[in-house]
């Protein structure tokens, strides 16, 4: 079962939400509803599931409702309609006491501008969640120290937050959230206030932490690069609605509509796309059946200067070039093994594109994409360039 299930979740700000809700159901846009009723649609019938242990990113520009959405999930903002289930329990219908328990035990939040308590030391900030739960002093300080150790702040415990840099402050924010040992971390633009270098460092550390602790993370961001970097799945929001949910590649490769397409237009694709996104179906010859003659014929048909050689079960053996093949034909050599080159440039399915870029530069032949020794596809120079340009990327159906 998904750990978070969000169904038809809506938030309408204003005096007459039911009227606005009706218009929304009739298909009016956010602006039209604002004009007609004076109500602002914050989130419009959002539905999604988050699986345990996954980093789910909600991404959108400012005003798209992503921050409202995350606050609806721990009910810092009351939903107008819909349900939020954590482990099957509906938060939207919960009484205050139960809600408080869920916030204490299951959900922790990390804030954009850190939201550390300036009058408390780093340690006592990290202790906050446990202190609120009524845990006794020695136990909570031990747990808080562990959490601070985890984010690399073990030696700063007696400082005040104001004495730390932005990146360190956010580590405290993260430690405060982790000290509770929650099931879900809600991170609201957690790295947006940091400068780019620190931001990247924090992203890496978050991925590390995630690998070690297997927390479920709901991450809000307006930065597509960040979303693509850390997200297992990404939900794109616009005007309060979720426009598309998918893996980073899905979003880049199959944008659901013009909006998403525009959004992903200027992403640095080399960081996100991998070999499998740009490879194409290879032309091959079978080492057990074919000789140089067939190889030459195939190359001529397809206009290639080299061709890959496999066995019957598509295990990659090597490649032959057109020159070698025609020479062999003249000398009446029948066996491909004699003229085959075995020094093959290979990549695996998930080799990122920026690595392929370096490889293909020095390679005389297309790069072979190999999985368990089997040839799955090839990458030609043209495909790399067009993928970088963002056009005509095709997924090889496997």
């Amino acid at each position: 079962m998904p750990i978070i299930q969000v169904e038809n979740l809506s938030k309408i700000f204003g005096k007459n939400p039911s009227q606005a809700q009706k218009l929304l159901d009739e298909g009016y846009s956010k602006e039209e509803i604002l004009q007609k009723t004076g109500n602002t649609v914050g989130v419009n019938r959002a539905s999604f599931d988050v699986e345990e242990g996954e980093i789910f990113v909600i991404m959108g520009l400012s005003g798209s409702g992503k921050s409202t959405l995350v606050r609806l999930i721990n009910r810092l903002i009351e939903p107008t309609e819909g349900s939020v289930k954590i482990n099957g329990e509906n938060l939207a219908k919960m009484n205050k006491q139960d809600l408080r328990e869920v916030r204490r035990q299951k959900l922790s939040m990390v804030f954009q501008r850190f939201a550390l308590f300036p009058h408390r030391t780093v340690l006592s900030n990290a202790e906050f969640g446990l202190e609120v739960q009524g845990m006794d002093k020695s136990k909570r300080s031990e747990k808080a120290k562990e959490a601070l150790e985890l984010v690399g702040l073990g030696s700063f415990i007696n400082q005040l937050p104001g004495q730390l840099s932005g990146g360190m402050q956010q580590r405290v924010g993260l430690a405060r959230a982790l000290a509770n040992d929650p099931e879900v971390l809600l991170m609201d633009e957690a790295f947006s206030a940091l400068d780019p270098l620190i931001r990247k460092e924090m992203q890496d550390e978050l991925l590390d932490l995630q690998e070690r602790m297997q927390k479920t993370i709901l991450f809000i961001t307006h930065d597509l690069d960040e979303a693509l970097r850390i997200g297992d799945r990404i939900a794109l929001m616009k005007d309060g609605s979720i426009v598309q949910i998918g893996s980073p590649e899905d979003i880049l490769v199959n944008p659901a509509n013009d909006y998403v397409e525009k959004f992903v237009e200027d992403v640095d694709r080399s960081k996100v796309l991998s070999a499998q996104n740009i490879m194409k179906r290879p032309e091959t010859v079978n080492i057990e059946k074919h000789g140089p003659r067939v190889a030459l014929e195939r190359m001529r048909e397809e206009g290639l200067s080299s061709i890959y050689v496999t066995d019957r079960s598509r295990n990659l053996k090597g490649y032959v070039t057109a020159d070698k093949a025609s020479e062999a034909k003249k000398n009446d050599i029948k066996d491909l093994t004699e003229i085959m080159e075995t020094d093959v440039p290979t990549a695996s399915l998930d080799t990122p594109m920026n690595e392929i870029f370096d490889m293909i530069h020095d390679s005389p032949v297309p790069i072979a994409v190999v999985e368990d020794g089997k040839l799955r596809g090839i990458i030609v120079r043209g495909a790399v360039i067009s993928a970088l340009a963002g056009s005509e990327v095709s997924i090889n159906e496997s």
Partner: protein
Amino acid sequence: MSLNFLENFSKIPVEQWVGDLTDWITDTFEFFFEPIKEHLGNFIDWMSETLQLVNPVIFILLIALLAFFATGKRFGLAIFAVIGLMFIENQELWAHLMDTFSLVITASLISVIIGVPFGIWMAKSGIVQAIVTPILDFMQTMPAFVYLIPAVAFFGIGMVPGVFASVIFAVPPTVRFTNLGIRQVSTELIEASDAFGTTGVQKLFKVQLPMAKKTIMAGINQTVMLALSMVVIASMIGAEGLGQKVIEAVQRNNVGLGFVAGISIVILAIIIDRFTQSLNTQKGD
């Protein structure tokens, strides 16, 4: 209808009503006012007498020491306190100073005890704020002398009605600043507190009050100063202290006495003001 149509209305007997109301309150709540009058009166007397038991020289030295440490080991306030207090002692106003000091401290304490919870209540509820704000405006703009009248009706003459009038006059800044301080706590911190599952009380004591502390202390400083400024006025209904001397000077047209008593009040005011302020700034620096 002539322009003088207003003359058609007879005078509304507001005066009569308020008078009657005060009488009614005096009679009805006598059981309430009497013990206050007695206990509070005893407390102030006890405080003043206890303070007077201390030898002035020792007292001055103690104040100087406190001032030295409260201001972060600086000599300014300590030296001022020594010279100022020695001057007051020299002018044979020591007993009066102790009376005034007791009155101010008592009135300030009561103001804080009433004012801070009220400020918290205001901060937690928009409705309470809407109701209390104009009442505070009223309390601060009404000429302070007017409070003396019901004060006398409820508590007779002496120190207690002086404290009562001082509290009414001095409590608004504490209420206002407490409200302001709590409302100024950033929404992100409130959200953080809520997100970790605090109860209302936990949020108040772990986040809101600590964050509002400086603002509240500024309000308390104002309250103490206002209470001190009521000392002279309260003397008109028999509150003992330096104010008494000022009134005496006015009645006898004695400029000299007026100046000496006046300057004594100023000295006390400066010492108290710097003390409360240094309590507030000390930690931040």
